[in-house]
């Protein structure tokens, strides 16, 4: 075991409402382009959502798309893109030393809702319930579909961690590399949640579903006029390797995992808890061996709910309140809340800052809520901010049942 192995990101594959590759995603973030639009969903009708439009048949046969799940398809697309982007000679990669660790918010609701809808046409006779239901709904499905697609024979599983899951995919992969369980890890998060009416209905019943006459303006974290979450689908999977392996093969390095932390609020099913969020950020900083002032960009979790945004700002103020140069931004303002994929997409949407030196904006921040005061650091509002050299990015992802995850990525230097 080499618990101090340096772990680096060497490949990126993603699909989100504003891009099917990292360059496309980044360009749209810097241009301020929203990916939120109207979406028809069963029983509810028209809602607002972030929808992905990637080529499903790029890495799957039509039969595989039909048999599998949307989360599996998003995972297969993202994983194949990541492997390709990493420049790996896939035929020579040791498949039994490759692991797949995918964060998910939930899985199986889409298929279960579909089957119940289907048997409702047959007077609820369960003889019409599909034999595909179990393989589609087992919790490892998205990661398992990746192994089928890429012939990976090492470990695979998903990590159920609500909306903190994207970060935790990275954390799990880094840990498995350091434990020498694998030599290559495909990590990140995915979500197919827009295809379940339940998620929209539940947020609506909770008073937490965003609405706006102009879809592009519906997702507005930190803004006074925010009125809830825009649900999105998406996926972002990355190749993680030990630095020594990456350097040996001359891999392109996007960034290095510098520190991370996961903790629990232990206080409420849905309400966030600033104190624990702050503790989580502090622990990640300690593990990274850096001070709050070393962070250049804080990629916030804020989902545009009334209390969630305020709690996160209270936590940020506690940890970073005197860091006037810190740029705080929010990717959900562009794409909505991609649930299990959110943490991974939001991190990777910011990672190009190591090259271009910009913090992308938080769009729709027309009237900042005074309750979302982070102290000295300012939220990057509506236009990207030029930062010069970016060394550290901190990515917050929090979820229901009080799960918090923080991941810090640093610019790669020898």
């Amino acid at each position, binding site marked *: 075991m080499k618990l101090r192995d340096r772990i680096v990101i060497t490949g990126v594959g993603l699909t989100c409402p504003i891009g099917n590759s990292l360059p496309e995603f980044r360009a749209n973030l810097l241009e301020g382009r929203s990916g939120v639009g109207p979406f028809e969903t069963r029983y509810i009708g028209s809602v607002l959502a972030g929808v992905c439009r990637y080529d499903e048949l790029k890495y799957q046969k*039509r*039969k595989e798309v*039909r048999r599998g799940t949307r989360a599996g398809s998003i995972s297969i697309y993202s994983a194949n893109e990541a492997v390709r982007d990493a420049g790996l000679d896939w035929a020579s990669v040791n498949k039994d030393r490759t692991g797949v660790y995918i964060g998910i918010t939930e899985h199986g609701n889409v298929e279960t809702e579909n089957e119940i809808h289907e048997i409702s046409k*047959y007077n609820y006779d369960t*003889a019409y319930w599909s*034999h595909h239901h179990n393989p589609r709904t087992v919790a490892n499905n998205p990661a398992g579909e990746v192994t089928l697609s890429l012939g990976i024979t090492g470990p695979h599983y998903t990590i159920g961690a609500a909306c903190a899951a994207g970060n935790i995919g990275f954390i799990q992969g880094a840990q498995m590399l350091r434990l020498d369980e694998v030599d290559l890890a495909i990590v990140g998060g995915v979500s197919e949640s827009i295809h379940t009416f339940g998620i929209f209905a539940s947020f609506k019943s909770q008073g937490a579903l965003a609405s706006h006459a102009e879809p592009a303006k519906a997702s507005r974290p930190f803004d006074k006029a925010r009125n809830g979450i825009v649900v999105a689908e998406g996926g972002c999977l990355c190749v993680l390797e030990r630095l020594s392996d990456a350097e040996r093969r001359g891999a392109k390095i996007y960034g290095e995992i510098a520190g991370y932390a996961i903790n629990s609020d232990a206080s409420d099913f849905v309400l966030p808890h600033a104190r624990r969020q702050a503790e989580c950020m502090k622990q990640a900083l300690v593990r990274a061996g850096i001070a709050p002032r070393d962070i250049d960009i804080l990629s916030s979790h804020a989902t545009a709910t009334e209390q969630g945004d305020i709690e996160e700002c209270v936590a940020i103020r506690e940890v970073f309140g005197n860091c006037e140069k810190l740029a705080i931004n929010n990717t959900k303002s562009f794409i909505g809340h991609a649930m299990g994929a959110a943490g991974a997409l939001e991190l990777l949407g910011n990672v190009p800052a190591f090259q271009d030196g910009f913090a992308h904006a938080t769009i729709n921040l027309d009237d900042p809520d005074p309750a979302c005061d982070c102290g000295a650091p300012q939220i990057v509002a509506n236009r990207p901010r030029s930062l010069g050299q970016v060394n550290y990015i901190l990515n917050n992802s929090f979820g229901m049942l009080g799960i918090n995850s923080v991941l810090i990525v640093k610019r790669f230097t020898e």
Partner: protein
Amino acid sequence: MNPEDIRQVLLEILGRIVPDEDLSALQDDVPFREQIELDSMDFLDIVMELRKQYRIQIPEEDYAHLNTMGGAVNYLTPLMKDVSAPA
């Protein structure tokens, strides 16, 4: 439905279950699995589609009749004789 109608129904179902396969040269007396990529889960889809679309209940012990196009058409002809052909 006559045997030719049933053959068309089966081809339509197969077209959805194995959309990547060329079904134009399927031979009647050769098992489907030797001609196209069709595994046990796909096979169950044929049974399910017949149940859903035509309310044909096929007991498990009769599944072997569906292994070939010829066998399936012969088996289904008496079961589907009073079913209207799709428009």
